[in-house]
Structure formats: C-alpha cells, structure tokens
C-alpha cells in the first residue's frame, strides 16, 4: 500500500505558496503564511492574518508566559506548531470589557477561582470561554491561531505579510 505523507507546516519548515495572476490584483487575496508571520512577530503579538468585517483571525508567536487576557465573547485557539499551556481563571469580579470586541489585557494575576488548564500540541484546538481570564505559556517557541473579533490588541500589518 502507498504510504502517504501528510505535510504540515512549522516555524522551522514551511513552504509558502503563490498566486499566478491572470487578470487581477494579488492584494485582493491578502495571501500570507501563518509560520512566516510568526517568524517575524514578537512574543504574544496578535497579528491579523484574516479579517471579515468585525471578525478576525490572529497569529500569535507563543514564547514564555503571556499576560492574562479577558474577553466578553467566546474565542478559540488552535495550536499550529509547538506546545502551549493555557490556564483559566474565573475572575471574582467582572474584569471584562463591557461587551467590547476582541481580547483585552489585564494587569497582574486575576483574583478568582482556578477553572483548569489545557496543554495543546500541534492540531489541538481549545475554547477560550467568554468571561474567563486566560494566559498562555510555551517552553519553546510555538504558533497559535486565534479565532476572535478585531480588538484593541489586534495588529494589522498587511503590507508586510501579504503577497503583492
């Protein structure tokens, strides 16, 4: 039987595709690569790679411990490379953002009840439940893709990440 090899990308090994234009502008496709974006990012920057009205997908270079974040809506996090621990706390008093979109940083460690933690490796996806506080920790540099809304931490640098 044929042995098939499934190709996933990683920080160290990825090959970016391309656009062959016939009659269009390559900018219309906002074509980037999550590993290339993570390679060029600072730790825990949230860099938009996809945007649809108020909704965003952000690439995060996970390295060491992140700040704590809160959010008024569900989000999800998908590990694209490496290993990342996510720790959750239910804050004693509401720390969130009065319905504002996206994730918001909070200062220090939130006072509240531990909810648990998850350890994500490549391909693993976790819920970041609304009204909880969470933080990421990565012993070695890892790559995350966050499903969220365009918020105060979302960085848009399309010209430097997209094919043009």
């Amino acid at each position, binding site marked *: 039987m044929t042995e098939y090899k499934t190709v996933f990308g990683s920080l160290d090994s990825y090959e970016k595709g391309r656009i062959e234009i016939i009659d269009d502008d390559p900018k219309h496709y*906002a074509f980037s690569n999550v590993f290339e974006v993570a390679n060029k990012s600072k730790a825990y920057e949230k860099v938009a790679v996809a945007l649809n009205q108020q909704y965003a997908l952000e690439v995060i270079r996970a390295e060491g411990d992140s700040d704590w974040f809160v959010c008024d809506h569900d989000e999800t996090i998908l590990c694209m490379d490496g290993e990342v621990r996510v720790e959750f706390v239910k804050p004693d008093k509401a720390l969130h953002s009065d319905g504002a979109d996206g994730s918001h940083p909070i200062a220090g460690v939130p006072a509240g009840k531990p909810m648990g933690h998850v350890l994500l490796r490549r391909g693993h996806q976790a*819920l970041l439940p609304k009204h909880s506080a969470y933080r990421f920790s990565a012993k070695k540099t890892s790559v995350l893709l966050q499903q969220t809304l365009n918020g105060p931490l979302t960085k848009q640098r399309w010209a430097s990440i997209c094919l043009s």
Partner: protein
Amino acid sequence: MSTTDTTVKSSPANEHGYKSFELGGFKFHRDEFFVHVTWPTGTHLMSVDTFLRALQRDCAWNFFYGTVNFDHVIGTINHYGNVDLFAGKFNDAYRTAELDHLENFPSEQILGTFREMLADWTNAGYDPFASPAETAAPWGVKNGDNTAAITRQRVAATRMVGVKGDEKIRSDESGYPVNRMFADVPQDEPEVHIEPGFESEIAAFNLFAYLSRSDVTWNPSVVSVVKESLYCPTTEEYILPVVHGNDRVEWFIQLSDFISWDVQDRDSGSPRAKVIMKAGDVAAMPADIRHQGYSPKRSMLLVWENNSADLPALIASGKAPTYPINF
C-alpha cells in the same frame, strides 16, 4: 400568507430505471451516463458523476452561501428562504445569445425535488461525498440506492466540537476510522484538566485528528463558533465538485498539504488567478469571484465564514467591499 408548494413533480421510471423530475420550466432526466437538463430556451448534458456530486452538496448545504455552479451552465443562487435555479446566467455567451434562463423557488420546494432526485439517481455503492478513489461508480441502469450516504447529518457545533453537550469527537468506535491518506496524522488528544464546576467551559480536542477521520470530501462543517464567525474545516481530495461563487468574502487557511484554486470572474467565468496554497497559507476569496479547488492528495482546509445575514446586501449595494483588506 401563502403556503409553499413542496409537491415533487416526477414521472415514473424510464427505460434506464430512473424517474424524471420537473421544477417550473426545468426538466431533469437521467440515463446510464448523463443527466439531461432542459429549459424553455435550451438543453444541457452533464456527466452523472459531476452532477450527483454537485447535487449532493447543494442539498447537504441547504444551497450554501451565494452561487453553487454545477458547471459552466447550471447552478443555484441562495437567497436564504428562496433559491434561483439557473441555466447560462453566469456564462457570457449564453447571456449574449439570450439563451439564459432563471426561475425562483421557495427553498423547501427545490430542496424537496433535489433530495428525491439525489435519492433516485444514486445507485447502491456510490457515495457522492466520497473521493472517487473510495467509492463505486455511478454509471449504469438503476441499481438499488445509498440512503445512508446521501442523508448524512452535517456537523454543526454550537460552540466547539468536544464541549460538553456539543458535537462529539470522532473515533474508530463511533464509526470514523482514520483515512488512508492521513494514516500518519498523530491521534493524541490534548491534556485537559478541569476544576469542578467548569465542565461546560473548559474543553479542547485534536482538530487535525478529527479531520483525519472525516469520511467525506469537499464538505465544510462547523467545528467552532464565535458569534457569526464559523470555522468550517473540510478534507479535500480530487476536485471540488461545484464552482462556488460566494455572496461574501470567505477565507481559506490551508492546514495541511496543497490545493490549487482556479479563480474566475463570478459573473462571466473569465479566469482571474490561480491561488496555490500550501500548509500554513492564508488567502481570501473575494466576493466577486467563483472558485474551484484541486487537491492531489487528501488535504485539510479550514474554510472561515462570516455567517452574518446582512453581508450579501451590504456587498451587493457596495457598502461593503468585495475584497476584505485595503493595503
């Protein structure tokens, strides 16, 4: 208030054993190899293989977002409650010759007819959702049916797969063995530690393992939801059986392997670009194009949709751009 006529107009089995169907001025007829479509100004033949793969998806997706082109002539446009069935509408030559034709039907009426056609024209052993390498052929005279394959429940998570009470992860036991082309995909599940009282909040699953166990191709299904933001990953092998012309921007994140997309102008079909995506690549599909993907090896594609009901009108009226980013 009028009630919707959902009566399916069909005629008894022909010499090949297949029923014929009528929807307004459209007539559908099948023989051993072809589907014959006629409308007041024209006729069209499609390979029954291509036709059933497209019909299966149009039914399962409840007409999806925007336009589902079965090929360069036949297709549907979803207006979310009612649906246009057309011939030649998105084909410059047909339009110029004034041979194009379009009729609007309540969704339940066209869905009822399409489902019965799909059920009658799908023979035993043929699965229109499967890769052609993993199913029997659709040809020949009427030979049984495959109800289980064509009435699969579409996955639609409320928050995320694996959350308590939501869609379940897949396993050998639940009838989803790992696909032959994903035999090397790690099947480890994340470590999840939950403090008492937070069982409904803390959840994680292996999305790649989940996708490696998908038994269908080119069938986006919802695994996570953030308001109207839907993760609709799918596994792809061979050719997308429809040419999708969206009424909004959609995004692709290539999770594994490789897909080549042919992108054409949505209205004329004139080629605009080839988008060649490898693992980790992200690309938008603008709202004024149609696209068809080619996947040489089974691959994992994350389709990201904005499900907002307001979008088609915003884009059609020019209040929202047809491409997502200005830079």
